[in-house]
């Protein structure tokens, strides 16, 4: 029973791990911290997996657990020196007609989002992932109307950082 559950979890998570990596990239700025947060997200996903009923998609469920971990559970390790080491990451796009302006754009986007607070980060992330307002408001625990208003403000902040 436990073995079946575990196999299913590994399969589900392996296929969807990119969601967690993207969240780690947004909430941390160097490789060590990224791995730390990824580890905590993995622990929490597994711990909560028995409660995953399958009435929603695994990925939908994962957004919530992973974001909650990044916002509320993850503790920046104090042992590490705080560095703005964004260069640890290589931002690649998978477009067929290869265009390096897209890569520059992606890098700019990440470093702009890094400057937002944790909640605005979540709002922008869910917007970029094309999530409906209903899901955004349910994930964060605010009303749909407030989610809309706040999203517009977060987008404004982001635009100002991108194009000052």
């Amino acid at each position, binding site marked *: 029973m436990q073995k079946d559950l575990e196999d299913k979890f590994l399969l589900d998570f392996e296929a969807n791990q990119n969601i967690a990596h993207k969240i780690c990239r947004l909430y941390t700025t160097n490789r060590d911290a990224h791995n730390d947060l990824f580890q905590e997200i993995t622990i929490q996903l597994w711990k909560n997996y028995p409660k995953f009923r399958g009435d929603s998609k695994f990925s939908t469920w994962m957004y919530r657990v992973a974001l909650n971990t990044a916002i509320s559970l993850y503790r920046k390790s104090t042992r590490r020196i705080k560095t703005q080491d964004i260069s640890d990451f290589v931002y690649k796009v998978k477009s067929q007609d290869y265009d390096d302006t897209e890569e520059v754009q992606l890098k700019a*986007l990440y470093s702009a989002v890094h400057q937002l607070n944790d909640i605005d980060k979540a709002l922008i992330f869910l917007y970029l992932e094309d999530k409906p307002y209903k899901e955004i408001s349910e994930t964060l625990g605010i009303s749909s109307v407030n989610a809309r208003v706040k999203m517009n403000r977060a987008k404004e902040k982001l635009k100002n950082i991108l194009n000052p």
Partner: protein
Amino acid sequence: MDVLDDYKKTWINQADEKNRLTSLEIYNLSHSKSSSIVKWIFIVGVLEFILWTVINITIPDRFYKIYEDLNLMEYLNIFMGLHYVIILVFLFLFYRNYKRVSLLENTKKLIQKILKIRKTVKYYVFYNLTTVFLGSVVLNIVLFSDDAHLMKVMNPQNLTLDIQQVVTITVISQLIALLIIIVLLWLFYKLVYGTLLKKLNKNYKELRKLSDV
């Protein structure tokens, strides 16, 4: 078209993480030890319960001599019985709040629940401090109401002191002890909970702001 829509397209088009983990790596990670804020709040909370209980238990017998001298032993015993019941209630609440934390809640609810674990411990410490304070107030009232008792308790070696000096020494030493305790506790809370809860409080404030747009 919104300028961000352009960025959004790039975002959706970004390549998958190049350091993808294998199932085995994920398996190992999922069975590793968590170092989450909640876990730390729980550990610090348990340590606090232990600390205060140890303080309660290890008070030397001679401390109670003053109660015997003042014929307060009976009240003290009743109070201690009640005290242990209250500690058990606190422990139950603390554990229940910890167990209620679920990552499946929305973010706002989740942070509320985490902060609630910490609140139980805070109330526990307040309760202990209040009993220490009220206990010493009662003791002082009984003590100062009878000069002979005061001389006997505060000056057991029968040094040549007049009652005025004894009163002054008693009051000053109590004030100093109180001050030291308050400073130590304040430092402890600033340090431990300050670092642990800084992020949570900030995010909770942000979410509350979102709720009353």
